């Protein structure tokens, strides 16, 4: 039997206190965790329900940045005026994810914590998955790996992070605020998710018991020129084969600043500062876009069924930049 206790936390303090015991997990909207529990992938001993914590606001901070409470629902964030006006990229990314019903349930904190859709991770009948059972091997390496990583993977794990939101957060240089029973800290989005390396069982750099309390977005000059492109097998309700968060700060027809992040290609949102640097100071044209596209997938290593992803990623970057810059 896999019995678990369930407790509803009334405050963040209480939540992190309750989570100090081994086997505790936080549950927000539960749109991913409940599936994983039912599938026998996750075995929490204690579920700490944080979904009712008063951390669902989207608000402006004195320095002009915007704070999104970790319990804010994906649909509320996507439709919040501050997000729509200042960070339309995030709004677009959120709305391209899942379905309306799931977005109504899913929280921002939970979205950051969602686990890979790797079929070998999800189905416990497959005996080899280092993410699920460390040391057991990786079934995807020589298995059905069409959805899998082409960048930053290891021979231990080639899973991808399935989030759309996180890709936009990466391009927007978000900061994740987390707290434990003893301290509070911030983690830059680039350091929040990990590459699999030798320890693919860890998706993030959160410490045990740490609770995500908010996501902060710094002031952005990208609002007028951003685009989230999600390329997938059907028009809605499908995980990205490749997605691109493209954001530009344009001065007349010159790129003053650029941010690019890829989804669906790695264990975390994929950024390559060199690709962005290639755009800065340039005009947005076929040559500059192609250069950035080539650079961001530099070092890509595809597998048997996902070879197309490398070229698809390049083309998607060009398309997303074109859309962001209003040239397509």
């Amino acid at each position, binding site marked *: 039997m*896999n019995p678990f206790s369930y407790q509803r936390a009334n405050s963040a303090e209480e939540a992190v206190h309750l989570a100090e015991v081994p086997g505790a997990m936080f549950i927000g909207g539960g749109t991913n965790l409940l599936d994983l529990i039912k599938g026998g992938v996750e075995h929490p001993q204690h579920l700490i329900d944080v979904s009712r914590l008063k951390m669902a606001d989207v608000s402006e901070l004195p320095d002009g940045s915007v704070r999104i409470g970790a319990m804010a629902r994906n649909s509320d964030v996507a439709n919040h005026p501050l997000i729509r006006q200042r960070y339309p990229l995030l709004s677009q990314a959120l709305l391209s994810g899942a379905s309306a019903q799931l977005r109504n349930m899913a929280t921002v904190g939970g979205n950051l914590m969602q686990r890979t859709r790797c079929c070998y991770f999800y189905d416990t009948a497959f005996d080899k998955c280092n993410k699920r059972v460390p040391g057991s091997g990786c079934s995807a390496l020589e298995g059905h790996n069409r959805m899998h990583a082409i960048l930053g993977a290891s021979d231990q794990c080639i899973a991808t992070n399935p989030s759309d939101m996180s890709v936009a957060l990466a391009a927007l240089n978000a900061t994740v605020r987390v707290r434990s029973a003893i301290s509070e800290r911030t983690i830059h989005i680039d350091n929040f998710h990990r590459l699999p390396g030798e320890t693919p069982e860890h998706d993030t750099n959160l410490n045990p018991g740490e609770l995500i309390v908010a996501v902060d977005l710094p002031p952005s000059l990208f609002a007028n020129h951003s685009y989230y492109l999600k390329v997938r097998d059907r028009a809605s309700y499908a995980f990205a084969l490749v997605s691109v968060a493209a954001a530009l700060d344009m001065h007349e027809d010159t790129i003053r600043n650029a941010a690019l992040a890829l989804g669906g290609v790695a264990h975390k949102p994929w950024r390559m500062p060199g690709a962005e640097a290639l755009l800065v100071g340039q005009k947005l044209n076929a040559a500059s876009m192609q250069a950035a596209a080539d650079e961001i997938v530099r070092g890509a290593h595809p597998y048997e069924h996902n070879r197309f992803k490398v070229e698809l990623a390049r083309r998607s970057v060009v398309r997303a930049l074109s859309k962001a810059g209003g040239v397509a």
Partner: protein
Amino acid sequence: MSVTGQPLNRVDGELKVCGKARYAAEFSLPRMVYAVMVQSTMPNGRVKKIDTSFAEKSRGVLSVLTHLNAPKLPDGGKAAIDPPAGRVLSLLQDNQVHYNGQPIAVVIAETLEHAIDAARMLRIDYERAPATLNFATAKSHGYSPGKVQGSEADSHRGDMDLGLREATFRVSATYTTPMEHHNPIEPHATIAAWDGDRLTLYDATQYVSGVRRTVAKTLGISEEKVRVVCPYVGGGFGGKGSAWSHVLLAVMAARQVGRPVKLVLERPQMFGPVGGRPTTEQVLALGANRDGRLTTMHHGVISNTSFIEDWTEPSAIVTRMLYACPNQTTSHRLVKLNLGTPTFQRAPGEATGTYALECAMDELAYETGIDPVELRLRNYAERDPDKNKPFSSKSLRECYQIGAERFGWSRRDSRPRSMQDGNWLVGMGMATATYPTNRGKAAARVRLMPDGTALVQSGSQDLGTGTYTVMTQVAADALGYPIQQVHFELGDTAFPEAPVSGGSQTAASVAPAVRAASIAARNQLIDLALADTESPLRGIRREDMTIENGWLQSRADKTKREPVAAVIARNGGRPVEALGDSEAGDEKKKYSMHAFGAVFTEVHVDKDLGTIRVPRVVAAYGVGNLLNEKTAHSQLVGGIVWGISLALFEKSELDLRYGRFVNANLAEYHIPVNADIRQIDITVVPEQDPHVNPLGVKGIGEIGITGVGGAIANAVYHATGRRIRDLPITLDKFI
């Protein structure tokens, strides 16, 4: 006025949207307990050891059935095997494992949660044997199944050598379609309840009588002891046409624990032990003379089956009759794989076969430079060239014409990659649709009640298609009752027997029986009135009598009338009851019976990203009379939607090492979502067919999916210049 054909709302619509329509899994019986089916996790070998001790000690567990303790069934559980629909089941009679996902144990517990939990505690050791999983390498061992659903596996007509010599133009290509699984919204579900030696089943099925027969034969008991109830089905699509292992396992479990048992498959369990569409590889070789007339056709099909049973996807059958061509060969070959047995899936054969054939015809159109519609008209079969009989009716010419007009086919620039809209490459393609018109033996009972209502019953099924509604309409018209006064019941073996709701035959089979029973009851009622000294109708000649809107009346003098209830009341309130049955006669020997249609599609393919959209499908069908314009339209739309799915989305992805499907869930097994479905324009051309059945209806359950795969693939070629001969057409095939 006749209500048959009218676009009435579903009589069960309100029940369904209010959640009051009770499906098999929603019944609850006193003392009912829950069973979970445990499946193998490797593809070939045997169960060496199965340790049930932890599971048996687990809280709430009543019993764990395995091959070690399951009751031995007569004939090893094989007594009911009757191909192609009576399946070889996995009923814990031995320790052999033939595929990953085969049922190997059943855990029965007080609650579903207890059963699921205990199922995870089974410790199973296998002795593994090498498995055959790769269709591509196994296909060289293809063998003939002999027969394919009643037809010969191979066919030959004319002189192929002559046909080849006469061919100015030739095309030859290989097309492949993937394994698919039905995935109706309602999973398979069975509740089994024994009362002494009598068994009642609530089962999600397309064939209550078939389930009864399979269960009774397998157990070696009389069919009279078994009752199967199934008032609603949440989609079957062929998958629920056979009684699969879980039905018998629920029955065995209920007997084991002496309590009613509910066994509902989980979504991942829908991938394997309950059938699906097999992989096909189809070779098409066509030759045509200078005028584009076919001089030779070859259609060779290889599909996979399991190691436990032969089941053949009859993809080439359609090629035998669709076009006039004097010289032709077709063949079907099977390859055994360590997978669950495939089965009927919406338009089995026609859905996959028309994809390949209609793509090949498009390739021939480009080869000859003849417009695809014109090419099909030049090869129009006026008679069935396979059976050498006239068609009972055929409106395909009108379908081509109306479809082309509504679509705007004449605006198409036939050169590939010639039309573009921004980043979208625009393509237009067309194909022929067809499905046989089937009819089975059916019976119905009508009871005219003293309250003025009529109760009509037949042991048929409503798969969500509208059977309740159309039979109510047919009965109301035949009785002369207002439709509100007619109550139709189905889905119970206690009712007169009706055939499987498969092969698009329910309307064509059951409606004539309902009408016959209704007419018989109506005539009895009229006789009763005419013989009744107290009736104002006494003395009127029988042929001058009518029943309209629930009133018996004289045709000549409409003032002479009385309500039907009055006649029954004076007869001691005894209901007037009549049976009616119906089956095909000699007409099948004289005529070839098929429905036909033409499908036109527009597709947009992103020139860089390969993403595909289908903004428009225009289709025209000749399908005889419609019993209900609205439910018929929904059926055809549903078929086209699945055709889009077949073309662009669906594929059960097999891991070739484990023999296990990796996308066995509705997040990753892609079917269209609303955003994928845009405009679907359907025209049903008027068609009177006096031969198919007394109501002149042709089945519409399956024709909608046919042709669509070909029409979309052809439009994709037109848009991109790329001929994708492997379904589904996903974006990676353009990168």
